[in-house]
């Protein structure tokens, strides 16, 4: 199964990725010239609030450890992070960032996990079947039609499909509700509540699924086409195995394995796609939180959300990579 080298390398990449994200998160805000507290004071002064002068700056610099040398600041930052302390939101002061993210996170996770699983499984099966029809040069019209649809749909940005859905299905036809994750005023846990959640999530989920389906479909198709040329399929056929059995046990298994690596790689893209989708649908997840934070220049939230996204994506990638050798016994041995 795993070799030590594979494991060490994978965990090393994980730690490096997280470390890089944390360093960027720490360094970039400090690249801006000037004292952030002075900058904030000037900003407030323009709005007509006078909080005090040099004394105030000193006091707060001490409070946020800004008078310490850089490496001490970094250690303080790290220990805060480990404790889950991401600071306070500016626009909802003094609510901790963590608390705000925790309200938004379940919406995003729920929406994404369902949509990605459907898109991945569907695309894999459809694409593999499309590739499978290419053996012996059989190519029906349906497959070439589906192929062109996939080519187009894989290049549509998430937000575009979302915008079209919002316009056609919520504005013109009013089939679905727009905005929010659930209708306000319903009690938690009742049947109406669940139906309302599904109604609100259908369109965002559908736009994610449709876009991803094309990408996975094309990927699976080209992998399957490559598998078709392999000798073991020829041998399996010569042995007189049934087509369906060959497809499932020989061709499919060799298509699934490489596509899982691509799932790992595209997790980041999926996350960013879901940010866009949530913004378009004003779905109450992490993406909308980010959008509003950018509008209100709520930096602690922006930083917190991007850290959470990075943490979630890299951890998911690590988990898949650790499960991966179980699918393909050859991997760990390389």
């Amino acid at each position, binding site marked *: 199964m795993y070799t030590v080298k594979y494991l060490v390398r994978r965990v090393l*990449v994980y730690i490096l990725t997280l470390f890089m994200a944390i360093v*960027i998160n720490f360094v970039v805000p400090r690249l801006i010239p000037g004292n952030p507290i002075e900058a904030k004071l000037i900003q407030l002064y323009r709005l007509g609030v006078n909080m005090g002068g040099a004394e105030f700056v000193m006091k707060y610099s001490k409070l946020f450890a800004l008078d310490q040398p850089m490496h001490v600041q970094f250690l303080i930052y790290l220990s805060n992070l480990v404790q889950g302390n991401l600071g306070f939101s500016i626009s909802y002061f003094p609510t901790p960032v963590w608390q705000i993210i925790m309200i938004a996170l379940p919406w995003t996770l729920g929406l994404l996990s369902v949509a990605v699983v459907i898109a991945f499984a569907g695309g894999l099966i459809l694409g593999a079947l499309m590739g499978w029809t290419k053996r012996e040069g059989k190519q029906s019209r349906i497959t070439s039609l589906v192929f062109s649809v996939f080519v187009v749909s894989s*290049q*549509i940005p998430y937000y575009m499909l979302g*915008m079209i859905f919002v316009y056609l299905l919520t504005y013109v036809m009013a089939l679905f509700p727009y905005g929010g994750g659930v209708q306000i005023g319903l009690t938690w846990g009742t049947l109406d509540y669940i139906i309302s959640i599904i109604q609100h999530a259908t369109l965002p989920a559908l736009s994610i699924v449709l876009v991803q389906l094309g990408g996975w479909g094309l990927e699976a198709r080209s992998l399957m086409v490559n598998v078709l040329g392999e000798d073991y399929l020829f041998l399996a056929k010569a042995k007189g195995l049934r087509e369906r059995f060959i497809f499932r046990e020989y061709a499919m298994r060799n298509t699934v394995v490489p596509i899982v690596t691509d799932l790992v790689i595209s997790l980041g893209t999926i996350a960013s796609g879901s940010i866009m989708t949530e913004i378009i649908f004003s779905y109450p997840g992490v993406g909308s939180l980010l*959008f509003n934070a950018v509008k209100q220049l709520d930096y602690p939230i922006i930083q917190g959300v991007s850290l959470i996204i990075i943490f979630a994506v890299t951890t998911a990638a690590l988990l898949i990579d650790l499960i991966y050798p179980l699918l393909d016994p050859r991997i760990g041995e390389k």
Partner: protein
Amino acid sequence: MKDKQTIWVRDLARRRLRGLRVVVENKKILIGLCMTLGFYIVAQIGSRISPYDPKRMGDAPLNLPPSQEHPLGTDPLGRDILTQLLHGSINSIHIGFMAGGVAFLVAMLLAVTAGYYGGIIDSVVSIITEVFITIPSLAILILIAAIFGRISVPLMSLILATFGWAFPCKILRAQTLSLKERGFVRLAKLSGASGIEIVVKAIIPNMLPFLGAWFAFATSGAMMAEAGLELIGLGPQTIVSLGLMLNWAINYTAFTRGIVNWWLPPCVVLVWMFLGLFVVSIGLDEVGNPRLKVK
């Protein structure tokens, strides 16, 4: 010694010529190039002809639906949408090409060096590549862009390039590894060519279709990331771009007001460009790997 060298150089020249012919014959590449370059030329000409200014407010009545004077209508600040679209497309394409070009060059250099020389360079490069692949670039881009505020266009392109090189690099490295073992590279080595000479004259020319494909990929990725950042409300914001038009449309609540002409045109242009670049890269991939070809 001299003779052997001319043999492999001539052999390479023949390969290159064959490659060129295939590129012209491959319809996908031609169609894709016509889509992207053709649109770029149209946008360049159109933006010069247009009598309106993409940014000056109040030149025309507000919120006009499409009409003869304003084929795509006007926005809530009285700006002509078609003019915005033409200027925005040019700006988005420029940013995409700048960022994509830088990302692609970095990817190619790192991939070829790591793949050809191997050893410790290879391990370091591939670990860094993996780190940059797993990190969700949009999250980092959002962070950097939000904190720097209104960043300039070159800085934006540079930031986009920083997170766009990794995936092409991974694939190109694998390509280099497989080319390294081929006969003509061995022949070149035997005839005493230096490492750089082999990389420049033997490995890179033989990867040309893939290099082209990944350049198209990097460009379209950069355009997509740019549009995404602008849509969220980050980025230069001093020049009109397709993403910024979408951001305006969201902020002016185009959806709940049922207005189509604010957001559909930039979307269509983006998809058109992505599709064109994608078709080019599929075509190039087929040239490099004929097994993929669909009849």
